[in-house]
């Protein structure tokens, strides 16, 4: 496979997190768009789950369907989204477990009495909106502003207070689960987009966790608020890191003095990021002196689309 380094025109929270964890990982994953050949069950299962929840809400709140009809619509959508992906029977996030999680979610939060309902915009529930905001950092190849974008599950109305609502499936819920969202840039970005692009007074985010256990499902909620000063700091942090990415890109190009790029322009972590989540998928490339020789056969091109529900879906 020929490497074709391209600087991304749109950065989302996943791409930014990758750069923050390890610039070299960012280089392989987002500049060269490489990924291991097997698709991620977590992304696939999470995407199908989110699609089903969205369909339920559109049917129940938007079209005025009854509970059972909305659930039928959600199940049909879930099955279509899962498609011919393996059912992964032995995995925590198997097709069957995820289907049960949809049922458990709406049993725990019955939509008729749920204290968080979708914000209605022109008679339609505000579910699944995507956004792209221009930053002040210019793209090193096109000279256009680099965009920051994402896709949010829902804007909820919580007794008159607007909140971003996002569902997360996990294997475990606990104190550490609740605390991990307090400074999450992903939600700062959603809140900022809703305030600046939608002109909506969104106060923060509500994250609803669904844990998939052997004997059933667990549920937890975390509420985080983002005052304007914190949004400003996050925006500065984002742009600072975009500038660092562009500097690394130029350094990487300068090392090869031409159109080619050297991985050496992007620093390595040499620490926890190498072993995080049962090891970085590019670990083997850092273990050999000439990584370019080891790409064929181990990696495929990644068509990550940050504005899609399952970002591994190819771009339309």
């Amino acid at each position, binding site marked *: 496979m020929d490497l074709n380094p391209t600087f991304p025109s749109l950065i989302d929270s996943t791409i930014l997190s990758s750069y923050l964890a390890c610039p070299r990982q960012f280089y392989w994953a987002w500049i060269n768009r490489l990924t291991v050949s097997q698709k991620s069950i977590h992304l696939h299962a999470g995407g199908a789950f989110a699609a089903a929840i969205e369909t339920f809400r559109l049917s129940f709140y938007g079209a005025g369907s*009854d509970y*059972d009809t909305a*659930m039928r619509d959600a*199940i*049909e959508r879930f*099955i279509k989204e899962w498609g011919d992906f393996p059912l992964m029977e032995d995995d925590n996030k198997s097709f069957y477990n995820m*289907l049960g999680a949809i*049922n458990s979610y709406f049993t725990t939060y019955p939509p008729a009495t749920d204290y968080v309902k979708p914000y209605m915009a022109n008679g339609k529930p505000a579910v699944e909106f995507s956004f792209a905001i221009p930053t002040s950092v210019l793209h090193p190849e096109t000279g256009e502003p680099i965009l920051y974008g994402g896709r949010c599950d829902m804007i909820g109305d919580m007794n008159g207070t607007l909140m971003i609502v996002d569902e997360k499936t996990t294997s475990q819920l606990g104190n550490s689960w609740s605390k991990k969202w307090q400074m999450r840039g992903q939600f700062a970005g959603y809140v900022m987009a809703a305030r600046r692009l939608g002109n909506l007074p969104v106060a923060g985010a509500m994250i609803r966790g669904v844990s998939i256990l*052997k004997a059933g499902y667990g549920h937890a909620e975390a509420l985080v608020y983002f005052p304007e000063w914190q949004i400003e700091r996050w925006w500065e942090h984002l742009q600072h890191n975009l500038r660092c990415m562009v500097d690394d890109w130029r350094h990487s190009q300068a090392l090869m003095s031409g159109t080619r790029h050297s991985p050496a322009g992007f620093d390595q972590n040499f620490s926890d990021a190498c072993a995080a989540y049962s090891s970085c998928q590019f670990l083997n490339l850092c273990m050999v002196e000439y990584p370019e020789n080891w790409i064929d056969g181990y990696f495929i091109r990644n068509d990550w689309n940050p504005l899609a529900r399952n970002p591994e879906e190819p771009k339309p």
Partner: protein
Amino acid sequence: MSNETEAVPADLTLALSKVNDLRARVLRGEKLTPEECREALLALRSGRSAAAKRGAEKAKITKVKAEQLDLNAFFKPK
């Protein structure tokens, strides 16, 4: 909201086969009814719960058996 107290077969295999049937029909382009979806979800829930219960009982039995083992017997000189 659904009434979830109906009797459903507490058998995971049967539940999975109901779900598989729904899946095959949706992938063929057929439309499902709300009733059959509700039934499949109830079957899945109770089948999964029964399977987990059986798993926990089996684990208990294994534990009791393990406690009965005399480990010294393994290290006796021959």
